[in-house]
């Protein structure tokens, strides 16, 4: 798993590349746990190259969901592959998290 990030004044984009499993989810958790994350209005997760997400990976997003909501930071996923989207959907996360097809839509929110 490789995580790269770009930041603007109002948003932080994390590009996830590879498989988000038990070991790589630790890296993601470190990134999301940083206090400056709460300074943005939006956290955008680019899932174009995310091939697989395990329950540990989902757990990272779930554990930060409440914290981001409380700080009024939006968490937006985009470019999600079908099978990854399916995992979110089965767990019911699509009703809790904002998942949009394209980057343009993600930025527009």
């Amino acid at each position, binding site marked *: 798993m490789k995580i790269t990030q770009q930041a603007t004044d109002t948003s932080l984009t994390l590009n996830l590349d590879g498989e988000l499993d038990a070991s790589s989810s630790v890296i993601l958790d470190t990134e999301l746990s940083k206090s400056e994350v709460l300074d943005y209005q939006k956290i955008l997760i680019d899932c174009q190259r995310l091939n697989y997400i395990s*329950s*540990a990976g989902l*757990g990272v997003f*779930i554990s930060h969901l409440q914290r981001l909501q409380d700080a009024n930071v939006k968490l937006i996923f985009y470019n999600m592959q079908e*099978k990854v989207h399916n995992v979110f959907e*089965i767990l*019911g996360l699509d*009703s*809790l998290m904002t998942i949009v097809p394209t980057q343009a839509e993600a930025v527009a929110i």
Partner: protein
Amino acid sequence: MSLRQKLQAVILPLTILSWLVLLYCTLLTASPELATQLGRPAPWLTLVSQALFAAGVFLYQRNRPDPLRGTDFTGLLRRLLLGPGILASVCVGLHLLERFIQAEAPTNDRVFFAVIYTINLALFIVFLASTNYTWRSLVLFRAPTHLRREWLWFELLLGGTLLFRLLNWAPTGLLAYPVMGGLALFGIYLSGNQKWVAYLNRRQKWEVVLLQAGLLLCMGVFVVYFLRIEHDPKLVAPAPQHAFLMLTVFFAAFYSLVGLLVTFFNLPTAGVFEQKREEILSLQRLTQLIQKGQTEKEIYSTLFDSAVQTVGADAAWLTLDTPTDGYSGKYFNIEQEQSAAIHSLLTDYNLGHIEYLNNDLDNSSGFRSLKLPFSSMIVMPLRSTKRRYGSLYMLKDQRHGFDRENLGILQTFTSQTVLSIENLQLLQASIENERVQEELKIASAVQDSLIPKTLPTDNWFEISSFALAAKEVGGDFYDFLHLPGRRLAILVGDVSGKGVTAAFHVAQMKGIFHALMQENPLARNDREKFPVPSRFMSQANTALIHCLEKSSFITASLYIIDYEHGGFVFARAGHCHTLYYHSIKEEVSYFRTAGLGLGIIRNDSYEKHIKNQFYDYNPGDVMVVYTDGIVEARGENKEEYGEERLQRVLERTYYLEAEEIKQHILSDLAEFSYGQPVHDDQTLLVIKFKAVQPDPHS
């Protein structure tokens, strides 16, 4: 009692008796008045009693246990000096007493003179015997067999000289000198065995030099006494066994002298011996510490203390790259600022991580600028092939304070330390590993007990199940519960994560299931007696909020089958979709209902995210319930098994019995993921409603 023991027992009385006989003879010889009364003793009696006394004393000493205890050489010499030293003083005292009496009341009485002479002779012989046998202990200290044999020959030959006078062989003139000279040479040869000196430290060596000098003095006292007496006109006693006594005195004195000289000339090298000794002892201490299972801190501390002591450093410090248990190093006679300055200078010179010896620090401008009170330094890194642990720094005030040997010692010390540290770490790791293994075993056993061993059997349906844990303990679970009124509750789920924590949550889930599925006594109608699945899920969610870690969640599906009314209701809390064969439509499809996993939302709003799905089943319908370990199983190219492939299998096998359908699914799955490791737990339940349903009212 053997003959030898009997002989030993009579030696002492016989010796005393022979001395009394000797005294008797001497007295008779000295006093003509007595001699006229009792008759003059035969000369041979004097000689024999004298020889017997000498032989007795020597034999007695010979048979005493070895006076050397361990390697306490100074103690041995001290005891030897104190005993015979007193004898020598007594001898001198008696001689002076006699002189005093002579001066006060000059007589020509020979009796008193003779008595003192006889006593002194006995004292001298006792002194010689004990000295001789002390020397034996020293000569034979860690001696090879041939030396022991040579010593025995020496004793036998010495004993032989006793017979010289006795049998009147008295090898005079030409014969005497070679025999005596030969024996003297033998004694000189034996005096070369001073191996014990090497075992003394510096202080002990000085002590030994003084003790040996004292012993020589004692011997001198006796010899001077006898030499003076020899020419005294009053001496009427026969001369003692000259040959034997001379040889013994010669050997005793020569051995003592050689010992003194060897010890004396060994004094300058004592420091080196001691250093080597100290090194060995320090190494032993280091090694012993490991066996005691001490902490890393103690091992480092021992290394530091031993190194400082052995090398004799004026200042030193030890730094660890990564502190262990809050221990990051140790300082001796040096300020932290000074050590930091030296360290940064070494880093600048790129010498921070290698072995380094500088015996002239002032020669380098960098060190000169630090204005250190030290002139020599050793840097010794602590490292193994795998990693580096830290560095040991030794400093001395004077230039050329360290040598190559010091470097070698420190190398040995540090490598021993690193070995100890790594041993300790290995030991701790293996203990930890064992503990984890043990925990997993327990957790696995607990989880195994949580999975129902018997499946419900009924006329209305068939159930077949399969469960496989990926590692020792997984997070999958399922359970059944018969409810009154021909109803069956089936719970299937998956706890995120693995191991002991997952097993713990499984147990919790099972507890929640059995607790919530109790009949509510306050229910107003039949429908409210048991919670509907959506209600169950939201209650379970509330129960789990406080005990599930933030990043953990649980997916579950609860089915309540009511075969009195031919229907079922279920709720899916984030769990895999239920695969279903509708016999009436002859179609296989998934129930795609919405539903959020448990533990994701941690407030009352969960209820909004879970739905009930009602369905009236028909005879011949098949329900396939599973966990994500099945559909997410990986194939050869990392692709997932998937819902579609599972659906395809049921489309081919729906008409078979539940057990057969399950077998087909499993063999298809095995074919798909052939050769791939099982990453996640796999659970599969196949429920088939029987084609011919019994009459519900019968």
